[in-house]
Structures are given as structure tokens and as C-alpha cells.
């Protein structure tokens, strides 16, 4: 007897519409989640051409009987939930019943499946949404789904797929993450004949980290584990779909209070990196909620808080964190891709994560100890709580009052939040900072446009179109916080970000030297072994020739590492590993397909960034003069290779206006 039934229309409609299949990696994600939901212990993924040509996921899970195998392709057909009430406590990874029909409609799909206690299995073939073959066959227990020619019937979509290596690296990192979340299961990922990941079951998470990333990574991680009982359960406010439903109370829906008896508990475990590890973006932060990989601002904020004063505000740790809460405590039905969640007790969860991670970090860094315990900081700002973001201001204000933490009492050793650098530049209403018209100097990598050297469009029409002559006449006065050069000329006051300015100078020089084949490089005292993730490895093999042309000499060392012997001149040996990881990560996330010119620019930008003068570095007068003169000579002095502004100008007119002289 089949297990699948079609969801009632009203439930289906409550599920936010959206596209499930964006790229090969999203297909892999859906199939993988289905296999996990099916209780499989062994999952094998085979792809070809970055998944564009072929994706095959084979599992040893519960399989499907013939009826189910057909019903699975009906829209909103699922075995995982029955009604809207179940949406409040989804315990499986899938629940929308959308994946298989969506995938089937944009590819050539073949399903082979057999439930273990059935004598024979079923084969279903679907071409662009039309079933054209259903037959009985002798098959192994479990399910194997093969997707060929993804988007063959949507050329427009197909055109937007990225280079094979890019798609492959997305798939590789996705599979890696799921493998990390399920150490008790066997995972395999093969690209054509190349085994990218083979991870047999291991005893626990740390063994899995070791298996997937190697010893170096494991050594740099601190384990975290904590439990906290919940004091209540459920929602401080109605779930969003109920608020937005004007038709009012539906009789079938449950009351405000769910079964109040056992509130359950919250658990967190996983690993966080030691303070020595500093990443320039959040891409190494992996958070799983009940086995589901998610991206969540609240959790990210909790982590930032935990690392406050341990890591500088603009760098990020490596985090692999598994949060487990009763399924009624998380709303996973936020987006079809299911990577967003809403916590029903966001504040409690936030503080729990922050305190658990902080405690683990403190324990790992004990000397010398403060005589007084560091007081906990007040909790997440309201703007970070999803309720407030949804725009329901009144509701969220009430909620905030209700659950605001008690005022911290007594003297706190906790430093005041270090002011972001941009505070110094907020001149207020009357003052206008122009030039390349960026008001914020705070380094916020997520805000930065990723494409090369496009200067932001100036807000002010009077902004000088050609900066070079102005820059050439600048006279440096000094530095602000040993990071920003203050300079003047007849036009007004200028502020130059010294790191970014030097980065720009070096970037152009490196590109020129590369073009002229005049790259200089420095041999390392001993080869530097760099471990690569499968995704990084995919990029590395694609760009290794170009890396060599840029002064790297590296060769494969074992299956997951490379040995770097020579690196571009001007880059500290300490920076080489970081630089390579960053570069490979960046290229693996690249949205457009990577052509040679772009790779060259990326490499040059990366070298420039690591060879450039840092912030917080005192500069002598002649060094500042030199830097400004060099900047004036560049082709594009207004923005750094990553698109950040280099100079700000505070014009004479603005100064006069501000002093009410005009």
C-alpha cells in the first residue's frame, strides 16, 4: 500500500511558491535530502560535466512501491507531512513535495526503486515532465535517480549555468556539508572517473572532520557541546503565514498553545576555530539546524558576539555547528530552497549559541585569567530578529519587551563595542563626503561588488571625473588610526585608505608584469603543504597553469594537498596559504564562467591584497607621499580591485558650507 497522498489544495497554497531547481547543485541537494529522509545509510553521487550532463544519486533507503513511484512525480505529493499542522514541526528535510516533479519537468529523469520487502522494483522514465516508461524490474533495494541533460528543454536557463568547474565545486561543497552532518552514513561523490569524496561511516563528528578536511583543520578547531532545557515552547507571535492570511481563523488549525507538557531542550555541538584562524568572509561558517544546512543572520550574529574581542570585527572564524531543537521550535517553511529557517524562540537560541561558543573559546584560551567573569552582553539587536525584519513593527516591539533580557548589573569588564572605523567619517547632515561617494569605510566584504574595477557611480555630479591630477597634487598631513591618510590640496580635504590604495597600485603593476612575463617570485624555505577541499581542488586544477605564470610553483602532494615551493614576491610566507584558499574559494563561487582574463585579474587582486601595506601601520611622511604619487599614476585610482572605494574627498565648498560661510 502506498504512503503518498496529495496535499489538500489549501495547504499547498500556503507553501510559498518558488523555484527549487536553480542549478545542478540544487538538484543534488534535493535528491540527497530525499535519500536521507528515506533512512539511507549509504549514498553515492555520480556527476558528469559539473552535473550538467549527468547527476545520479543512489541510496539504500526505504525505496518506493510502484504506486508511490508514480505519485512522487505529482505536484505536492509527499509522504512526509499530511496537513498544515505538520508544517509546524517538520522533522524531515523534505516536506513540500515539489522536488521530484520540478526536476522531472526540466530534465530526462530515470527512477529505479525497490522497497526492501517487495519482490521487484519499478523503473520510471520521465522526459521533460512526461512519463514515457513505467516498468517492473529486478532491482537492488533502495532508490537510484539519474538526471540527464538538465534544462535541455529550457535553453534560456541552460545558458546561465556556470563553467563545469564552478558547478562541480558547488556540488562538492554541498555534498561535503551533508557528509559532515551525517558522520554515521557513507557518502561518495564521483565526478566522471574521479573520486572526489569517499567517506565511510565513522564514530563521530570529529572523525568526520578529520576524514573530510584532514588533521590540520581538526587541530585548529575547538569542540563545542552544550544543552539547555527550554522554558516554554512555541511561538511568541503567530506564524507568518497566519498573520498574512486575512481570511482569519481556520477551524482546522491548532490553537495558540501547543502541548505544553515537555518543553524539550536545545542542544548545540560542533567545532569552532581557534582565534588564530581568520577568514575574510563567512563562507567557512556552516550551521546545521536539525540536520539541515541553513544560513541564518541570528546565528551568525550570535557567533560574532561569541568571538567579540577574540577576533577583530572584520574577520570570521571557521564554524561547524549543529543545532538541535524540538522540530516545533523551528519554522523551515520560509523559502522553497529550505535554507532559511525561523526560530520560534530566536532570542533564547541566539544567547544559547553565543554563550556556548564563548565558553568553549574561553576554556581553550585560559592564561592569564580575569579575576572577574566577563559579563554577558545584551542580546541580539531587534533588527536581526526575523519578526522585525518582516516589518511587523508593533508585534515585534511587544515581543521585544516581553523577552528583553534583564539589564546587566554590576561593573562589566566587557569592553565597549570597538567603534567601527567609519564613525570618524560621519560628518552629519551638513557635510557631504564625495569623491567616489562611499559614506561607509567599514570593511564589509558581503557588500562589496565582486566584479573587478568598476568604480561606484558618484552621487555628486560635481565629483571630479578625472582624479589623477587631483591626487598628484595631494600633500599628506598624517594618518588616522594609522590606517587612513589625511591629505589636502586646493580642492579640499582627502582621506585615503592606505591598504586599499596600495592594493590598487600593486594590482595594476602585477597585471602588467604578468602580461610582460616579468613575474618575480620567492622560493620558500621549505615547501608549504596546503590542504584543499574538493571544491578548491577542482578550481586549482583548472587554473594551475595560470598560477604558475604568476609565480606560484606548486605540485600535488597526496590526494588532498599541494606542496607550494615558490610564491609571488612580496607576499609573506605566512600569507601564502591564506591567499591560496581565499583565491580558490572565490573562484569556486564565481557566478559567471571563469575565463582567463578574469582568472588573471583575480590572482592579481589576491596577490595585491596580501602584499599591500596593512591598516594599523604607521607610515612615514615620504612613504605616504610615495603612495599618493603611485596612486595618482594608476589607471583606476578610485576603487580597489574588489570594488571598494580608495579615496574620499571633502570639498572646500562643503567645508565652507559646514562652517556657514556660504
Amino acid at each position, binding site marked *: 500500500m502506498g504512503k503518498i497522498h496529495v496535499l489538500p489544495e489549501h495547504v499547498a497554497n500556503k507553501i510559498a511558491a518558488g523555484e527549487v531547481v536553480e542549478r545542478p547543485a540544487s538538484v543534488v541537494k534535493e535528491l540527497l535530502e530525499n535519500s536521507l529522509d528515506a533512512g539511507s545509510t549509504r549514498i553515492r553521487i555520480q556527476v558528469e560535466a559539473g552535473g550538467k550532463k549527468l547527476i545520479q544519486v543512489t541510496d539504500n533507503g526505504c525505496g518506493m512501491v510502484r504506486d508511490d513511484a508514480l505519485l512522487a512525480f505529482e505536484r505536492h505529493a509527499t509522504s512526509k507531512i499530511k496537513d498544515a499542522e505538520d508544517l509546524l514541526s517538520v522533522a524531515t528535510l523534505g516536506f513540500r513535495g515539489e522536488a521530484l516533479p520540478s526536476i522531472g519537468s526540466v530534465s530526462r529523469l530515470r527512477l529505479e526503486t525497490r522497497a526492501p520487502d517487495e519482490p521487484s522494483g519499478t523503473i520510471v522514465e520521465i522526459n521533460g515532465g512526461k512519463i514515457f516508461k513505467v516498468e517492473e524490474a529486478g532491482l537492488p533495494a533502495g532508490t537510484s535517480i539519474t538526471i540527464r541533460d538538465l534544462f535541455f528543454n529550457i535553453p534560456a536557463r541552460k545558458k546561465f549555468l556556470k563553467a563545469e568547474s564552478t558547478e562541480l565545486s558547488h556540488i562538492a561543497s554541498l555534498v561535503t556539508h551533508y557528509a559532515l552532518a551525517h558522520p554515521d552514513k557513507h557518502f561518495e561523490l564521483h565526478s566522471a572517473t574521479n573520486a572526489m569524496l569517499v567517506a565511510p561511516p565513522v564514530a563521530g563528528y570529529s572523525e568526520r572532520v578529520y576524514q573530510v578536511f584532514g588533521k590540520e583543520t581538526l587541530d585548529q578547531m575547538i569542540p563545542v557541546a552544550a544543552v539547555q532545557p527550554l522554558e516554554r515552547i512555541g511561538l511568541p507571535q503567530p506564524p507568518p503565514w497566519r498573520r498574512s492570511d486575512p481570511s482569519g481563523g481556520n477551524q482546522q488549525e491548532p490553537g495558540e498553545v501547543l502541548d505544553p507538557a515537555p518543553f524539550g531542550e536545545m542542544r548545540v555541538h560542533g567545532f569552532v576555530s581557534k582565534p588564530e584562524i581568520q577568514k575574510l568572509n563567512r563562507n567557512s561558517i556552516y550551521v546545521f539546524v536539525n540536520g539541515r544546512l541553513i544560513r541564518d543572520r541570528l546565528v551568525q550574529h550570535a557567533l560574532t558576539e561569541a568571538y567579540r574581542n577574540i577576533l577583530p570585527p572584520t574577520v570570521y572564524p571557521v564554524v561547524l555547528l549543529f543545532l538541535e531543537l524540538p522540530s516545533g521550535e523551528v519554522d523551515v517553511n520560509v523559502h522553497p530552497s529550505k535554507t532559511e529557517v525561523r526560530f520560534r524562540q530566536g532570542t533564547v537560541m541566539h544567547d544559547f549559541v553565543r554563550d556556548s561558543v564563548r565558553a568553549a573559546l574561553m576554556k581553550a584560551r*585560559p592564561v592569564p585569567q580575569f*579575576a572577574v567573569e566577563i559579563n554577558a552582553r545584551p542580546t541580539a539587536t531587534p533588527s536581526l530578529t526575523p519578526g522585525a525584519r518582516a516589518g511587523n513593527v508593533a508585534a515585534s516591539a511587544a515581543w521585544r519587551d516581553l523577552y528583553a533580557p534583564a539589564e546587566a548589573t554590576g561593573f562589566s569588564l566587557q569592553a565597549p563595542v570597538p567603534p567601527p572605523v567609519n564613525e570618524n567619517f560621519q560628518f552629519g547632515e551638513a557635510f557631504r563626503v564625495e569623491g567616489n561617494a562611499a559614506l561607509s569605510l567599514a570593511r564589509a566584504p558581503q557588500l562589496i561588488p565582486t566584479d573587478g574595477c568598476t568604480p561606484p557611480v558618484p552621487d555628486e555630479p560635481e565629483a571630479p571625473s578625472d582624479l589623477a591630477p587631483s591626487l598628484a597634487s595631494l600633500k599628506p598631513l598624517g594618518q588616522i588610526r594609522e590606517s587612513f591618510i589625511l591629505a589636502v590640496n586646493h580642492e579640499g580635504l582627502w582621506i585615503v585608505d592606505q591598504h586599499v590604495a596600495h592594493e590598487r597600485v600593486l594590482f595594476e603593476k602585477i597585471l602588467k608584469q604578468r602580461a610582460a612575463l616579468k613575474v618575480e617570485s620567492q622560493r620558500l*624555505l621549505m615547501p608549504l603543504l596546503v590542504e584543499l577541499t574538493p571544491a578548491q581542488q577542482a578550481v586549482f586544477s583548472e587554473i594551475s597553469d595560470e598560477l604558475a605564470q604568476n609565480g606560484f610553483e606548486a605540485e600535488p602532494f597526496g590526494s588532498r594537498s599541494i606542496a607550494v615551493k615558490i610564491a609571488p614576491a612580496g607576499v609573506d*610566507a605566512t600569507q601564502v596559504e591564506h591567499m591560496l584558499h581565499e583565491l580558490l574559494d572565490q573562484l569556486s563561487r564565481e557566478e559567471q564562467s571563469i575565463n582567463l582574463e578574469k582568472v588573471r585579474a583575480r590572482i592579481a587582486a589576491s596577490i595585491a591584497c596580501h602584499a599591500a601595506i596593512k591598516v594599523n601601520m604607521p607610515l612615514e611622511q615620504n612613504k605616504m607621499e610615495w603612495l599618493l604619487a603611485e596612486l595618482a599614476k594608476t589607471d583606476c585610482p578610485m576603487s580597489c580591485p574588489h570594488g571598494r572605494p580608495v579615496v574620499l574627498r571633502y570639498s572646500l565648498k562643503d567645508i565652507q558650507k559646514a562652517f556657514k560661510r556660504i
Partner: protein
Amino acid sequence: MPVEAIASATGTTTMEITVSKAELLRELTATQGVVERKTTIPILSNYLFEAGGDKLSLTATDLDLSLRTSCNAKVKKEGACTIPARKLHDYVKLLPDADITIKLLENHWVSIRCGRSNTKMVGMARSNFPSLPAFPTAGVVKIPGQVLRSMIAKTGFAIASEESRYTLNGGLMVLKPESITMVATDGHRLSHVERPGEKFEGVSGEMKTLIPKKCMDELKSLLDSTDAEVIEFAKDESTLFFRIGQRLLTSRQLTGQFPNFEAVLPKDNNKSITLHGDELSQAISRVAQFADERSRAVRLKLEKGELKLSASSTETGESEDSLEIDYNGDALTIGFNAQYILDFLKAVGAGDVKLELKDAQSAGQLRPAEGEDYKYRYIVMPMRI
């Protein structure tokens, strides 16, 4: 009375002492290097003052590094307080040469009186000041101060400015019963100095210690300004201790593995030339003006009877210099970062140096031509230019 004992005897909320300005200033100046300047933790920009017996003990810490010292004082009331470090130093500097009375008032206010000058500053609760580890009672090794000072000067400059898995932001000190060795590297070059013929009691086998760069710098400046001939060194699992006279420097230990440096010490560098250190330094400085600003690459061309040095860059032009040498072997061209060589020439001081090479891909070695009391060698990796 040892300073550690004073620390534990205090904890009350009173304190009143009188010290001589000269003595206080001397110790304030000595500890300035440890006072955290850019701290986000306010207590770290304060001194901890502790009065007991006939001594005032001063402590400054930035959590990684702490310095505790003391001076004579007339102690009227024993006790402890904290005082903003920089302000106090700047103020005491300007006081006349006379006795200063320091008294703890209510709410962490501290009054400082000297002659007709009277100032009040506000500190923080003493209990906020981090507690420091105590000097171990066993395993103390005595090291001649000037030997240590000279070894730090010969290696400290080669330490990586940042820490990574591959290089440590510190140097390695190896004590053996009859020698002391110090090694530092930044992954491009390595400086190695050994002093045989010393006797270290209490050391058996090899005692290896990683010393953070900040600690080495501070140690050097303390050694620059001490009369103490011998310093005391000890460590426990997490902390290093150096006692220099009445001053005690403690440092968090570096964790990590110092690279296996023995493997990179060249053994068959058969092309050897002797150069006058000053001449080499001047020639390199001249041509390096025309090297690429980022890479600082200079080319060394070894020929019969002559060493040619050159550098060029598209922006600045090119430059060549040459030195007469006693050399008969095969010609060899090799690139180096000019700065790396200049660093060594500066550390080695006057006199002749030996440059020993193998080929364009292998490490070069520099060392003083005349053996002194130190065995000093410097390994530089070549550049590809």
C-alpha cells in the same frame, strides 16, 4: 620581600605610600612597553600598584605579556590600586625630583601628591586586574644577560610578523648543558646563532622554548637597561618567566611546532666568496633603489674575480654595481630580496662576511668570515627573477 608575596597579602581597599620620583619614574619607564595601547579592555591600560613591606610593586600586562617590577617605598598603609598607566607616566615625568605620595581614595580615585602638586586620577577596581602566574620554584636556569641580548639581536629581525601554521611569530631557544642556540625564520630566511662553551646548570639534554616576538623585543629592551649580569629563566606549561634584576617578565607561551630547521641548513654550498660587509651593504643599497618596490629583488652574478649586483624595474630604470672578489669557480646568477641581505649585514656588524651558494634554486648562506664566540649563520632563499 619578593613581589609575589606582596600581591597575595593585599586586597584591601586602602593604600598609602611615599616613593622617590626618580625611582618610580625609572620603573614606570621600564614597563611602558608592556602597557597595552590599543586595548579594548580598559583595565589593561592601567598599572596595578601593590604596597607591602617596604616596597611598591608595579604590574602592567597586555594579557600576552606582563611585567612586574618594584621600587623602594615608605608604606604607610598596605594595599593595592590601579592607575591609568600612560597618564601617570606622562605626569610623573614632569614632577620635580622629590618624594611622591600616592594614596587610594574612595571609588578607585587615587591621589598623587608631590611638593605643591596635587592630582587625582581614577583607576578601576583592583579585582578586575588579571591575576598573573607565579614564578616557578623549580627548574630555574641562569643565563648570562649579554649573551641572550646579543642572540636576540642576531635573530629577532628574521621573525615572521604574523603567525601562521607554517611560521611562528616567535623564535626558538634551545638550551643544552653547554650551549645555547637561538633560531628564527619567516619562511623565506632563517637566522641561526649558537653560543658554545656556556654552562647551564639544571639543563639536561635539550630544553626547547618558543619565545613570542613581543617577548623577545621586550626582553631585549630590558637587557639593554639592566646591570644584572645573569638573568633567571623558568617556564611552566603555559608561561615563560624571565627575571632580570627586580623585574619579572612573564609571557604566554607560543604553541605550535617550530619548523624543522635542521633540514634546511645547507650542507654542500661549494661556491664561497668573502666580502667586506660594509661594501656589500652599500652596493646592495645602491642598486636596490632601482629594484621593484614590492619584491626588492636584486640579481647577484658571480664571476671569476667579480661579483656583479644589479636591479631593474620598468618605472625606475636599472642599476649595476660590482665588487672585486677572490673567486675562481663556475659562474652563477641568483636573485635575492635586498632587504633580507641588508638585515643580516646590519645584525652582523662590521667585518668580513662569507657568502656561500650552490645554484640559483638553492638556499644561500651568509655568515661572519671570522669565527667569534658565536656560531652565526643566516640562510636566505633565492628569488626567481
